[in-house]
């Protein structure tokens, strides 16, 4: 019996000693013990006393609703979005529900939007949760409601049409009333309504969806008092913490290790060589009773590395290589019209080469995972973003069938895509350590904890890129032709003769009316693994595209807002968002000037990503010493039907701040060694540099689109455009650093 099955919400049979792990300080919050019940629900048999109409909703005899999230809550507010949809269709109050994470189950919980795009996984990514749940969760809740109403009608022997529900109480015109809980037994006996028989509420009757006070974030109360449980916080009886020494030169191997000093530290249980491969770095893991001892043991190791297999990657040399490649023809990604060779009379040719660095995700909670190998399977405790892919990777590492690996979903302390690693690196590493420990007679669950240094040096970066652009302008400032060539590693494993949709997104689909446009790609097969970072390809293509539009507009002295307007005339959705941000930011009136020696300007940018259009106007001050400050960012958003306006604003604010960090961040390599280690040399935005952000939403009745990521792409170009408006110099290389070029 796996640990999962021994856990239930109410049982005293927790393998996890609650008191020990919470210090007697309060109730377990993210229902760490929910595994048992969900597992039962997932197996299709009903828990006694509960109404389980589908994989997403459970209702107990008190009418209390458990909403099951197939998505990770990593800060993006998905649990609350799901709660809002469920409460809306069920007509219940926020107090009448809770949200728990689902187990990994490819069949029940496959992400419908990712699946449609070819990723057949249960996973959280691509800002798809609300787009998918808009159908699944509303239908799940509405069918539960329909069944409960039918059960009430049968019990009271009245027509169902004479019933209504408010705050989880069913009432009849005769005055009869009762809570949902009273009808769960008879509802359980009813057939499930056919999919096309499920009727959803009309927008005009919404009481929660789209309302500022419709649903407060369900996870926030436990996030202000330290009670929310993350992977880092789980401690199981007999558990060992593993801290690992990765090879400094990436993919070097352990030649020998002197563990004498480490083994002398009281509490160190094992020192294990962990073979790496082309996915995980491996190295030497120290397993100990607690994190500090494991780290101390790790730091006491003397390791000799065999560097023959080590990477020699050097990012500066790579830029040189990329620039050479960028000067040659690449794979055609899109080709409209004809490229113009020479500038017409009075026109101009812009040759612009951009260099953008590797970026690390660097979430607040460094990567970690807790693995328990049991007699007949294994269990993973994780802020799990890539559920079934990680389940499969873990199963493969252990030689098990995927269903033998079970997952307990926890909150993640950020991720920004890192916990959806396409190669499951940190999961495999944790599993391999637990496997090797077991082979060496060290039993007990193993929690792998990366220190910040392993996290920053943990690869799977946003790829570095070079963009070579050649734009021919007519004398009137219009674009005669534009050639955009991108060089980089592919986000998704992609053969060289195919287009990597991650690397190239937002290039050939540029909405601007440009008749002659050629987009080319060069894929570089580097040995530093890369992956998606919050907003994926738009992290680089929005920067290049939107900075160039300003440069193009500047040639003919046109206003960058008006220039964009003209090129977007055929795209009313873009125009609406662009006009909204310009209006709110007072684009057409002069920006108040700064103190003596300060120069101020606005910059604008717009981008569609993950189905959502976001435009931003940044107000920037450049000080006399050429340092700069982003004072305020105005944002306009069209993400379809608004579900939680406060959460949307919060995600956009966070997206702006996440983008702002790019102004200072870069991962560089010298001889296969990552040069950055912690927040001192891989900085993150801090409050003293964080701009005020104001977000405005377009009223829309279209189905919801993403919001976790789309706030990010326009920020950097809006800021860079403001800076260029001040300095007259266009910026080609990131990071910008703390100073602008005078």
């Amino acid at each position: 019996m796996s640990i999962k099955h021994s856990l239930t919400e109410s049982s005293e049979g927790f393998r996890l000693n609650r008191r020990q792990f919470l210090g007697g300080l309060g109730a377990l919050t993210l229902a760490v013990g929910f595994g048992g019940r969900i597992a039962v629900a997932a197996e299709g048999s009903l828990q006694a006393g509960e109404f389980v109409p589908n994989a997403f909703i459970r209702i107990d005899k008190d009418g209390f609703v458990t909403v099951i999230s197939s998505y990770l809550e990593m800060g993006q507010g998905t649990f609350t979005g799901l709660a809002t949809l469920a409460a809306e269709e069920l007509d219940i109050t926020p107090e009448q529900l809770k949200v728990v994470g689902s187990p990994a189950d490819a069949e029940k919980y496959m992400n419908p939007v990712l699946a449609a795009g070819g990723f057949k996984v249960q996973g959280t990514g691509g800002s798809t949760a609300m787009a998918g749940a808009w159908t699944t969760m509303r239908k799940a809740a509405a069918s539960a409601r329909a069944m409960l109403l039918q059960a009430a009608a049968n019990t009271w022997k009245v027509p169902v049409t004479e019933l209504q529900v408010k705050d989880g109480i069913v009432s009849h015109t005769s005055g009869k009333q009762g809570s949902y809980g009273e009808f769960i037994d008879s509802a359980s006996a009813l057939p499930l309504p056919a999919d096309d028989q499920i009727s959803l509420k009309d927008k005009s009757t919404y009481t929660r969806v789209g309302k500022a006070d419709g649903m407060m974030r369900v996870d926030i109360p436990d996030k202000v008092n330290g009670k929310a449980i993350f992977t880092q916080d789980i401690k199981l009886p007999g558990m060992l913490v593993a801290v690992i020494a990765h090879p400094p030169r990436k993919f070097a191997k352990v030649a020998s290790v002197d563990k004498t000093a480490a083994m002398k530290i009281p509490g160190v249980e094992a020192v294990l060589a962990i073979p790496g491969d082309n996915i995980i770095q491996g190295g030497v893991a120290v397993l100990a009773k607690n994190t500090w001892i494991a780290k101390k043991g790790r730091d006491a190791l003397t390791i000799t590395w065999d560097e023959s297999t080590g990477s020699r990657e050097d990012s500066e040399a790579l830029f040189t290589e990329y620039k050479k490649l960028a000067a040659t023809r690449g794979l055609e990604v899109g080709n409209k019209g004809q490229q113009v060779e020479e500038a017409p009379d009075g026109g101009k040719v812009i040759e612009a080469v951009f260099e953008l660095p590797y970026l690390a995700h660097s979430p607040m909670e460094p990567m970690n995972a807790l693995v328990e190998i049991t007699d007949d399977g294994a269990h993973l405790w994780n802020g799990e973003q890539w559920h079934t892919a990680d389940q499969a990777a873990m199963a493969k590492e252990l030689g098990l069938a995927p269903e033998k690996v079970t997952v307990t979903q926890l909150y993640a302390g950020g991720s920004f895509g890192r916990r959806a690693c396409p190669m499951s690196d940190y999961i495999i590493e944790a599993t391999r350590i637990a496997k090797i420990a077991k082979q060496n007679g060290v039993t007990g669950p193993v929690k792998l904890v990366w220190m910040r240094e392993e996290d920053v040096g943990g690869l799977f970066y946003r790829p570095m890129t070079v963009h070579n652009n050649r734009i021919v302008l007519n004398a009137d400032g219009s674009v005669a032709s534009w050639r955009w060539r991108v060089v980089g590693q592919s986000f998704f494993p992609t053969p060289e003769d195919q287009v990597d949709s991650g690397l190239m997104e937002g290039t050939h689909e540029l909405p601007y009316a440009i008749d002659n446009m050629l987009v080319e790609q060069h894929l570089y097969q580097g040995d530093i693994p890369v992956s998606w970072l919050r907003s994926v390809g738009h992290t680089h293509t929005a920067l290049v595209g939107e900075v160039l539009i300003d440069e193009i507009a500047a040639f003919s002295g046109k206003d960058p807002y008006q220039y964009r307007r003209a090129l977007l005339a055929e795209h009313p959705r873009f125009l609406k968002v662009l006009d909204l941000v310009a209006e709110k930011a007072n684009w057409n009136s002069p920006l108040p000037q700064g103190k003596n020696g300060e120069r101020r300007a606005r910059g604008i940018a717009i981008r569609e990503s993950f189905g959502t259009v976001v435009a931003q106007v940044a107000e920037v001050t450049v000080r006399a010493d050429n340092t700069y400050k982003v004072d305020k960012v105005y944002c306009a958003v069209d993400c379809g039907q608004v579900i939680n306006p406060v959460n949307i604003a919060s995600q956009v604010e966070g997206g702006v701040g996440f983008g702002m960090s790019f102004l200072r961040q870069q991962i560089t390599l010298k001889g296969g060694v990552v040069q950055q280690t912690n927040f001192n040399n891989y900085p993150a935005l801090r409050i003293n540099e964080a701009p005020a952000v104001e977000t405005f939403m377009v009223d829309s009745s279209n189905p919801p689109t993403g919001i976790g990521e789309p706030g990010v792409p326009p920020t950097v170009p809006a800021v860079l455009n403001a800076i260029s408006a001040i300095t007259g110099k266009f910026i080609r290389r990131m990071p910008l650093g703390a100073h602008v070029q005078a």
Partner: protein
Amino acid sequence: MIKLTINGQPQTFEGDAEMPLLWYLRDEKDMTGTKFGCGMALCGACTVHIDGRPARSCMTPMRSVDGASISTIEAAEEDRIGAAVQAAWIEEQAPQCGYCQSGQVMSAIALLKEKPSPTDEDIDAAMSGNICRCAAYPRIRQAIHRAAREIK
């Protein structure tokens, strides 16, 4: 033997005196509200109060807290200002992933104890040691101003 109090409870400790307070709290006392973010006093996730002053517990060895009085996020609600800060955090819907928020709340409480009506500059100075990778900064700022109004 090191003697200290944690949230008013007397404690003794006889282990490795070099162990940072952070890991004593988290791994020995199972008080996991205080978070590990960087281990180098760079991010503030591990902020606690030592004798009433905010401190980064990840760089505070146990030997240095002999005789000290520690308070952590777990006891924040027992404090009038602590409770006001937590309520303001909820009102403003400040947290996103939440991982930095114990540290943010503890730094904000310390700020308000010293400056009950902080200016934006005071907030910048007191809070810039606390990284929030989710960049919940605008709401954190608003929440501090709100808490300041509430405790007047």
